[in-house]
């Protein structure tokens, strides 16, 4: 074998090993993830989890969300579109994954707003103004209050409610469930228990469509 052939063969072999390894690893990961969900059904949806949409909708999107995560903000309108396009078919279950340092306090504020029946408007208001209260990806709970004005919330009550032990427990449970299901980035979606094959808008839409078709055939 001459030198050039040797070099090209070696380069191709190494690159091929890398690509095949990456493909095998990701498929294995996905299988493990689906299995994890199957064996930990109760970790996916809790009684305390906020939901949006018809309670008996056949397709359930579980979203692990961090209010300070930019990609979660970018995905939120898309998720709303999916819900709007299939009003009686799709339901959204919200799980918190406050991975940003200090984000758990913002989740506590959201849960305090939930006690006044304003979780979703509060979440939308905070996602829209994320850059203002999370400068340089550092969530600062003191900065969120001005952005919640105009929603008709009793802020004084919220400042007390957000320290309620049941809210702390709820956040701890969501974090523990995220760990059980190996959610280590946000947003993470499970559609009827299945994770996205790879991350992206199209993959989420395809997964929802697939679940809708399966629901129709039943």
């Amino acid at each position, binding site marked *: 074998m001459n030198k050039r052939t040797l070099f090209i063969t*070696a380069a191709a072999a190494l690159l091929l090993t*890398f690509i095949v390894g990456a493909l095998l*690893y990701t498929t294995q990961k996905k299988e493990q993830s689906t299995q994890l969900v199957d064996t930990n059904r109760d970790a996916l949806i809790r009684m305390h989890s906020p939901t949006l949409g018809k309670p008996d909708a056949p397709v359930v999107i579980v979203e692990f969300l961090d209010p300070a995560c930019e990609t979660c903000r970018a995905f939120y309108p898309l998720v709303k579109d999916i819900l709007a396009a299939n009003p009686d078919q799709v339901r959204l279950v919200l799980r918190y994954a406050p991975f940003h340092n200090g984000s758990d306090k913002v989740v506590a504020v959201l849960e305090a707003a939930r006690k006044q029946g304003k979780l979703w408007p509060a979440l939308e208001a905070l996602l829209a103004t994320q850059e203002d209260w999370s400068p340089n990806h550092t969530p600062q709970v003191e900065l969120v209050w001005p952005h919640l004005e105009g929603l008709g919330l009793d802020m004084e009550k919220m400042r007390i409610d957000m320290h309620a032990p049941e809210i702390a427990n709820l956040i701890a449970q969501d974090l523990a469930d995220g760990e059980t299901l190996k959610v280590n980035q946000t947003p993470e979606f499970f559609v009827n228990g299945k994770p996205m094959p790879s991350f992206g808008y199209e993959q989420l839409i395809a997964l929802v469509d697939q679940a809708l078709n399966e629901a129709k055939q039943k």
Partner: protein
Amino acid sequence: MPSLDHSSNTAWTLVFLAWVLATISTLGALFLGEVMGYTPCQFCWYQRIAMFPLVFVLAAGLFPFDPRVIRYALPLAVVGWLLAVFQMALVVGLIPESVTPCQKGVPCSELQVVWFGFVNIPLLSVLAFSSIIALLFSAHFKGSK
């Protein structure tokens, strides 16, 4: 001059092996970071800065074979080796953690991956840089014989 040809052939093979090692290390680092999703600590980034260019510098020196590539590749390999040895010292505990310049994000003294109970990423980095330096040095002496 068949003897010169022979020694330059050996030197070529040694540089080629160094390239293979650098490429395996580069792809391995990319696999750990991009495929398996481990966040590289700061020291890992500095070692990557030394390792990744070796793939291209050494390859460029192979066709046509230019023994001076050893001169150009060695500084990268030596700096990478020093960084790897320093991190290894951190991991083993020879250097107290308070001296580490990298405590935000992933601490460099923490091992994210351990295989067979003793193989970890800093160890692999030390081994890779050491072998590349050894190969380049022997290529240098074979070539000048």
